[in-house]
């Protein structure tokens, strides 16, 4: 660990000596509360599930084989990846202009108020927020009532319990994370670059495309990675506003472990989800670094 600190930061040995004990607590915490449970869960995923007997000690790959060979579960994984990707892209599209606006706000007061407005949704529990969406999107919800009031429709449109509703719900959860991450990066981009580009004849859209976006790439990457990971592991939103016929990985893990006490298969699902999330995040990191250099 000491050498790792020295290597990664190239720090002097006195810095290293000071950093080591500080890191010990965090490393221990991570080992005890993250890696150990993960290791136990991985071990569970190699056990056998015998109906009526719960979990039977074994060393088999059948839970992973079942996942790979079963079209239904593969479909659940694809849905999860699709929803996570689309909601991340939507968060980026909606989040970038807002983050830019906040970062370039003229007065500090306005900036603070805007940041507060972005953060407020985070103070609310995820389930509470989702309940709000249910009231809005239900067959007899606010949205359908308004649509019928202005005579756009006569019969309620089904919004709740669809993938669209899940996307709306997840993007609403992700936006604050995306905006705050992007904001902190854009804030650090000196205005002189924009002024220089403008003075050389670039139109505002070109300034955005050729100057701001490339310089904000580290923020785009970090924000997207956070959002993607959160969306892959979404639970409350798909359950509550996706409804019974919409399947994502998080709820399936819960279902296997609690509804039918199939810990081995539930653990295998959890591992597949963790591994796929990690691999996709790392792959995208490599791609982005190749394209835009080390961040």
């Amino acid at each position, binding site marked *: 660990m000491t050498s790792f600190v020295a290597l990664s930061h190239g720090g002097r040995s006195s810095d290293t000596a000071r950093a080591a004990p500080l890191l010990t607590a965090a490393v221990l915490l991570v080992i005890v509360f993250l890696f150990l449970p993960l290791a136990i869960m991985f071990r569970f995923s190699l056990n056998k*599930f015998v*109906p*009526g*007997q*719960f979990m039977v000690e074994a060393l088999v790959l059948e839970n992973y084989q079942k996942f790979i060979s079963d079209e*239904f579960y593969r479909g659940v994984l694809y849905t999860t990846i699709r929803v996570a990707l689309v909601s991340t892209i939507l968060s980026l599209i909606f989040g970038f202009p807002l983050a830019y606006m906040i970062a370039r706000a003229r007065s500090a007061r306005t900036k603070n108020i805007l940041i507060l407005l972005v953060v407020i949704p985070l103070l609310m529990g995820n389930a509470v927020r989702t309940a709000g969406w249910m009231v809005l999107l239900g*067959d*007899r919800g606010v949205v359908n009532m308004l649509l019928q009031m202005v005579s756009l429709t006569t019969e309620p449109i089904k919004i709740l319990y669809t993938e669209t509703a899940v996307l709306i719900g997840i993007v609403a959860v992700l936006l604050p994370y995306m905006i705050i991450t992007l904001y902190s990066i854009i804030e650090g981009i000196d205005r002189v670059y924009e002024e220089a580009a403008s003075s050389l004849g670039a139109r505002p859209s070109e300034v955005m495309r050729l100057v701001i976006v490339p310089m904000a790439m580290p923020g785009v990457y970090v924000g997207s990675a956070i959002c993607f990971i959160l969306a892959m592991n979404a639970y409350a939103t798909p*359950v*509550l506003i996706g*409804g*019974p*016929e919409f*399947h994502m990985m998080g709820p399936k893990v819960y*279902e296997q*472990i*609690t*509804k*039918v*006490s*199939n810990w081995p298969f539930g653990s295998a699902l959890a591992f597949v989800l963790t591994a796929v999330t990690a691999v996709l995040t790392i792959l995208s990191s490599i791609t982005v670094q190749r394209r835009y250099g080390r961040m």
Partner: protein
Amino acid sequence: MTKSRDSNTLQLSRRRFLGTTAAGVAAAALPAIPALAQSKDLVVGNWGGDWNDRVVRAFEKPLLEDKGYKIVRELSQAPERKTKLVAEKRLPRGTLDIAHLTDADAYEMDQQEVLEKLDTSKMPNFKHVRENLRSPYFMPWVYGGVVILYNPKKISEPPTSFADLWNPKYAGRVGVIDQIYFNYIYLAALAAGGTLKDVKPGLEKLKQLKVDSKPRIYPAHQQLAAAFASEEIWISANYTARALQWENDGLPVKLAHPKEGAIAITFGVGIPRKARNKDAAYAYLDAMLDPGVMAEMAKVTYYAPAVDNASLTPELSKRIDFTPEQVSKLHFVDYPYAAKNSAAWLEWWNKEFKSA
């Protein structure tokens, strides 16, 4: 002077020594003190929401808490509670003294060897528990059955069989609840002339329902109630208690006993083997069976009491109790069969029914 000071010092230190020793003895005795106080401490695992509110009001507060018991409640759905019981199997002591469960949950937990075999001699009220509901590791409290629920304004002729859910007249107006999927598998088996010991004919029959009637699938009871209220659906199957409660709340819902017989469900409690305070747990169980508590529970939950001496008014008894004929037709879940197949049924429900 010096001497006296010395002797003073000596005295002081002797006093201090005595004091310290006394403190030490007290500290050593400390674990015994909470153990004594603990005799009236209970940790109860129960469902949350309305159910728990009613249990507290009708039973736990007047019979236990007002008499000095200190109840700590751990509220969750049954699967979480079961997972906890199993996970704590290897620990020296568990967290729960009482686990509220259904009869089927209790069977599963007994298979996992986490429930105490009940010592009925510690519960004088136990002799009134109905014979057909008894089991060695589970104390039944209230029971009900899965029956047909229908909107009397839309369906003038009361349904008589579970097969009425398949009536083409009600296509698009049938509602089911995802949470209690197994009940639909059971009732389809009964409608197809099968039994709860072999649901295969039911699976085929349910698939047909999906294709013909396009049932609406709701996540939980609340959404089904809302769908009845908005007349989005006219017919469903659910527990007797839900039907009576919704009818009482003014929803357009009536219940009809199917000629096949209702599918029984019993709610009750078990004592975990790893419970910390078993004496208090037995006191809790015995108090549950009090005739007055039973009557109050029946009144507020609409479930029928599992004892034969509940002080129900004749009017309430008529509303919630099963007639002897209905009791004789009750179908009880075949626990070993259910435990062996429940994982496969959930998969079937996810893949074949919901996704079809």
